[in-house]
């Protein structure tokens, strides 16, 4: 009986020790005050589909970090509000994040017109601010702690299309004339300025240079006008509905220059790829990531696996190659900077981001003095060998051949454009 009591007391002691160990080690993360990261995101409005995809990627990042013990031993918490894709909502949201929610860090929502309105408050509070796909915002503010995750390069307007024209100039026989077509909206108008500069730099003659109004239902007259000028290269800067409209019209009118493509946003979206299928073959366009062996960065596969498991449930882009990896990556940059400096001080973290290089799911990222990528890593891919409209078609390597830059090249450009299929 006495022995039993001794054993019970001993067991009790072990039990209490075990509880103490658990209490002081494992749940330490959850006992800490959360590290809050605030942002606005387009969850409604024209960019909602992309914004929701970005949010999912950010939530995956938060879960990954928390599963790994948090940041500086603190669990991370995302605090976000729907900006409705309206810039007018942005100053208000960031004021709430900073003054009411008291977040530790802020990052931007999606796009230029969502990022720029936050800048005065960001500068006023001297916050680190990493933005998601904003074009050349810091050219106007020159703020030292602004960083931008889109790999457009130090001079985004010009660097954006540099690779396209460099590849075009290398072809034999060298194309001579260029037609430029741009939507009359922010990104496309910035891009066309750069395209113009790059075309002239490589000695191409611009034979057509026009803008089209957003939302036009039929591109046929425009495509006919381009065809009449017989350009060797057609460089188009369009948004998703315009990209689809242009490709369909070009196929119908048989506009078949030596190179066709450029900066058509939307061709990277799975739904549009499935919609256009083999029609995409031969198009030479900018890209951010593709399932090519040369782009197999550490962590990208694991991230996409998690994203692709969740995306169909939320009716999002099922493959998520365009924006989501970068939405994950810009938080990785912040995470690595906080971990390296062991600090939440904005200046310390900001200075670290300015000089360090980061290993992310979209590759190695280093920022230049203006907060853009120190060197452009705009990819130009040619769509090749697409045989059907099935989604699986776009998950295989060899369908989006990286032609530029050389470091990530995974195929050769089929030149001249083989014609519409």
């Amino acid at each position: 009986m006495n022995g039993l009591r001794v054993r019970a007391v001993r067991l009790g002691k072990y039990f209490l020790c075990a509880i103490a160990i658990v209490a002081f080690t494992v749940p330490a993360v959850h006992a800490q005050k959360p590290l809050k990261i605030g942002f606005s995101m387009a969850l409604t409005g024209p960019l909602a589909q992309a914004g929701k995809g970005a949010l999912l990627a950010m939530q995956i990042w938060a879960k990954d970090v928390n599963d790994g013990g948090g940041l500086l031993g603190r669990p991370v918490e995302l605090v976000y509000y729907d900006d409705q894709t309206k810039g007018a909502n942005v100053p208000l949201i960031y004021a709430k994040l900073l003054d009411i929610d008291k977040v530790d860090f802020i990052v931007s929502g999606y796009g230029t017109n969502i990022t720029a309105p936050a800048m005065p408050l960001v500068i006023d509070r001297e916050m680190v601010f990493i933005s998601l796909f904003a074009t050349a915002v810091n050219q106007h503010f020159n703020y030292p702690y602004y960083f931008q995750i889109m790999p457009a390069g130090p001079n985004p307007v010009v660097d954006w299309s540099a690779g396209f024209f460099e590849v075009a100039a290398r072809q034999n026989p060298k194309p001579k004339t260029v037609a430029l077509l741009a939507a009359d909206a922010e990104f496309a108008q910035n891009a066309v300025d750069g395209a113009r500069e790059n075309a002239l730099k490589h000695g191409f003659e611009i034979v057509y240079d026009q803008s089209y109004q957003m939302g036009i239902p039929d591109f046929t007259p425009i495509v006919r006008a381009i065809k009449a000028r017989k350009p060797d290269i057609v460089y188009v800067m369009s948004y998703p509905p315009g990209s689809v409209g242009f490709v369909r019209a070009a196929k119908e009118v048989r506009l078949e220059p030596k190179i066709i493509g450029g900066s058509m946003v939307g061709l990277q979206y799975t739904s549009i790829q499935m919609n256009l299928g083999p029609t995409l073959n031969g198009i030479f366009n900018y890209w951010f990531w593709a399932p090519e062996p040369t782009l197999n960065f550490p962590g990208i596969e694991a991230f996409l696996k998690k994203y692709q498991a969740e995306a169909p449930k939320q009716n999002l882009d099922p493959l998520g190659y365009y924006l989501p990896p970068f939405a994950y990556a810009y938080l990785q940059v912040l995470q690595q900077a906080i971990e390296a400096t062991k600090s939440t001080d904005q200046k310390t973290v900001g200075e670290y981001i300015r000089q360090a290089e980061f290993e992310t799911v979209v590759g190695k990222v280093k920022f230049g003095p203006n907060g853009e990528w120190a060197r452009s890593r705009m990819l130009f891919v040619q769509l090749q060998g697409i045989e059907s409209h099935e989604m699986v078609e776009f998950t295989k390597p060899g369908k989006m051949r990286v032609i530029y830059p050389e470091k990530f090249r995974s195929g050769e450009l089929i030149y001249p454009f083989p014609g519409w299929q």
Partner: protein
Amino acid sequence: MKKAALLILAVTVISGGLLLTAYIENQYFYFSTYIVLQYIILATAWNILGGYTGYVNFGTGAYFGLGAYTAGYLITNFNLPLPWLIVAGGTSSAVLGLAIGYLTLRLKGVYFSIATLAMSIVIATLIINTPALGGAKGMYILRPKEVSFFSNYMELLFATMVIIAVFTVALAWFIENSWFGRGLAAIRDDEVAAACNGVPVLRLKVLSATTSGALMGIAGAPYPYYISYMEPLSTISLDMAVNSLAMPLIGGTGSWIGPVLGAILLSTTQQVATVTISSEYNLLIVGILLVGFVILAPNGLVGLFQSLLKRRTD
């Protein structure tokens, strides 16, 4: 006596607004109140043509946008101070109101409304094709680093909007209680009868459109400093037209207080929804409130209060 009471109220509101900047440091307060004040001005301005005169205007975005772009141009090219921006923004939109009013106020009912909607598209297209205004690429506006009397620029913008809002509401009250307002009411009730009784119909309608446009332009003038980046499609938006129409309808179009109440209610609700619901549902709010008020209180909040008061006295 009533005039004196309103004057005291106006002075109190302005002094109160200025005093708040000395005590409240929370920037969220200034950002959110700025939007409410902006809508008080826009709704009151809309009501001068839409409520008093009975001409439904869908062109609020164009007047507001023109005021904002005029100010943006003057900031980036001449760095003019805020008061000059307000004068310039108001003047440019007044000229637009005068021109559009003269051209379109012979149209009636839905035809006039369609013309104002078309005007918004024309102004947006003009800006898209004007490189001096940033075109489709947009225009960046940097706030001055130094600001006198206030601890930051947002407080100055808030104080400016308080003064403009009080001025706008006072002007609406004055119009409502003057020969001008009575003429507009006569036009609203029966244009032909008003003309037969010697009311200078076209002149009053054009004056009403000019005043309404000028006030909307004034509301737009400080906006470049608020937003820092303007591009035509979001600055000249239909949302603004719908909101500035819905607010007087919810508050009541017959009196100066109606648009103020409607703007406070709707704008505050929208802002609370933005940072609480944070989903598609917040876009439903305007619609639900509008439908609800049209069914339950067709004369707006003011009409509802008046009928309740009447029932009690009866």
